[in-house]
């Protein structure tokens, strides 16, 4: 019996250590945001919500946050049709070079972000659209699209090819088959992928940094800019708001489709 007890001690030690490591940054920033002092410290000096008040007043932070939301929304809206169709096609049809396509789709994500960021900076620069928000949304979509495709492919590959034949047999023409049968069946994957895309675009820093100018900074870039001048606890507070937004997205996901499908997505 002692053998299994010492085993469980070792396992639990690892589990707790891992949990502490993973959550430490969040806890530190959360604690620091409640400080009553004027510099970021952990543990905080006293407790107050004054820095939350400060960020509510700071229009630059608020506007940067809104811009991040816009970027994330554009990215999600673009990725839903593109990722859904690509995911279904890869899962359902014997696409020629399916393997190569998958690797190609991974590329923007596999090559260093700074490289693809600079590439997109050149492309959008040539088009003369640098500094607007939609190119940032498109860029986030391009980089993170594999996640969307994985999520959709995971649901679509469980889909029996007989279902579409059955729908045809029921009298459904091709478009109706897609709308009534295929799409609802892959919907959990689409929801998972969309929320993932939203969160990733909301958080995207490096590519945003390269594609924005002073008029169009997104929140991560705004925070980064502020860190370079003075580090005040309002940055911790805005980070907490940021983390909370991501957490809400995860909660919505869990509520809509359950986290298990999210975790199972290949």
């Amino acid at each position, binding site marked *: 019996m002692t053998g299994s007890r010492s085993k469980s001690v070792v396992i639990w030690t690892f589990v707790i250590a891992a949990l502490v490591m993973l959550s430490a940054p969040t806890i530190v920033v959360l604690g620091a945001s409640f400080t009553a002092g004027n510099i970021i410290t952990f543990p905080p000096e006293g407790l107050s919500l004054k820095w939350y008040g400060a960020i509510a007043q700071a229009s630059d932070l608020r506007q940067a946050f809104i811009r991040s939301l816009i970027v994330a929304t554009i990215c999600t809206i673009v990725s839903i049709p593109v990722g859904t169709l690509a995911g279904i096609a890869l899962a359902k049809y014997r696409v020629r070079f399916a393997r190569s396509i998958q690797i190609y789709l991974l590329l923007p994500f596999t090559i260093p972000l700074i490289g693809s960021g600079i590439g997109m900076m050149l492309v959008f620069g040539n088009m003369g659209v640098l500094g607007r928000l939609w190119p940032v949304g498109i860029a986030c979509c391009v980089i993170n699209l594999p996640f969307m495709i994985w999520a959709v492919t995971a649901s679509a590959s469980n889909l029996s090819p007989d279902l579409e034949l059955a729908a045809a047999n*029921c009298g459904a023409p091709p478009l109706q088959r897609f709308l009534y049968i295929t799409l609802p*069946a892959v919907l959990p994957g689409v929801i998972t992928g969309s929320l993932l895309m939203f969160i990733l675009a909301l958080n995207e820093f490096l590519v945003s940094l390269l594609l924005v100018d002073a008029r169009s900074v997104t929140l991560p870039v705004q925070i980064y800019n502020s860190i370079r001048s003075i580090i005040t606890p309002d940055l911790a507070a805005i980070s907490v708001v940021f983390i909370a937004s991501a957490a809400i997205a995860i909660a919505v996901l869990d509520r809509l489709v359950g986290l298990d499908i999210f975790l199972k997505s290949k």
Partner: protein
Amino acid sequence: MAAASAERRGPRDTIAVSVRDVGMVFGDVHAVRNASFDLPKGRFLTILGPSGSGKTTLLRMIAGFDAPTSGEIYINDRPVSAVPPHRRAIGMVFQKLALFPHMTAAENVAFPLKMRRHDARAIPEKVERYLELVRLGGYGGRRINELSGGQQQRVAIARALVFEPDLLLLDEPLAALDRKLREEMQLEFRRIQKELGVTTINVTHDQREALVVSDEVIVMEGGLIQQKAEPVQAYRTPANAFVANFIGVTNFIEGVVAARDGASVSVSAHGCTLPGVAVGEALAGGDACAGAVRAEQIRIAPRAETLGNLDTLVEGTVVDAIFEGERIVYEVRVPGLGDQLFRVFDHDPVNHLQFSPGDSVCLGWNARDMHVFKK
């Protein structure tokens, strides 16, 4: 083969499905060759064959999922090669049922009506009527995964029938069920088919199912139709050795035709001469042949005297006796016929003498029960 089989077709019997010289080639594999048959309205046809015999391919062509590489299929006298599946009025029950998982039972049954633009106000009443037909009244609100295997079967049947199709196709939907449920559903298919009078084509590899449910049976092998007949005919007078072997349990005695006189023929095998009935005109003296005797047509007794009235008697030794409840299956080695193993059924295990492995026995059968096929 089909052209030769006699159709009992009166002037009022209209043809629901006509398959004319249909062939299907995948790459260099001939999945179906030259299939031709007519199915009168209201009949229940079963296409029986082992896997890879082409029976499912034929069904999929009738459903419109694959186009034949040659020949034409007519449904209600109209050629359908150019008609996509959703424009054919065919209901189908799939092997894996293919119910829509995100819909309730009632929504599944309503789907064909919605897609075929039936009057929306009449749909709920019709759905309920068909759910009652398959004895699922009141289950409409259940999700598919809340139903048992048998109930899912019934939803699939209701969905295939609710729009009153010209033709019902069954693609081995019972294959995955356990035996008791399968036999129950076979009778259910038969009841519903008779009640609605819908022309039905069923595909299966289960010979018992084919005999139980069908008005007509087509036996397929290697992409070819081997025989089309009513179940009793297919069983009693198989057209060839394949059909004799596939339906029922049959003992084959290989030999050479010694003489032929009209239908009666004598087969010489291992120095014995066995009388039988020739199948087909082509069989002539000197041909290699196989005599087929059904396991239930062979009588088994301890001594030859008890079987005195039978035409053919052989002696052997019991190798195995398998008790199956309603019958005993004996395996008997017959030294006089090249040590061949015979399978023999005894259908009265309560009253009959029972044999054990090692017992010497005598087997006997009548000449009219040995069908002789050309090899």
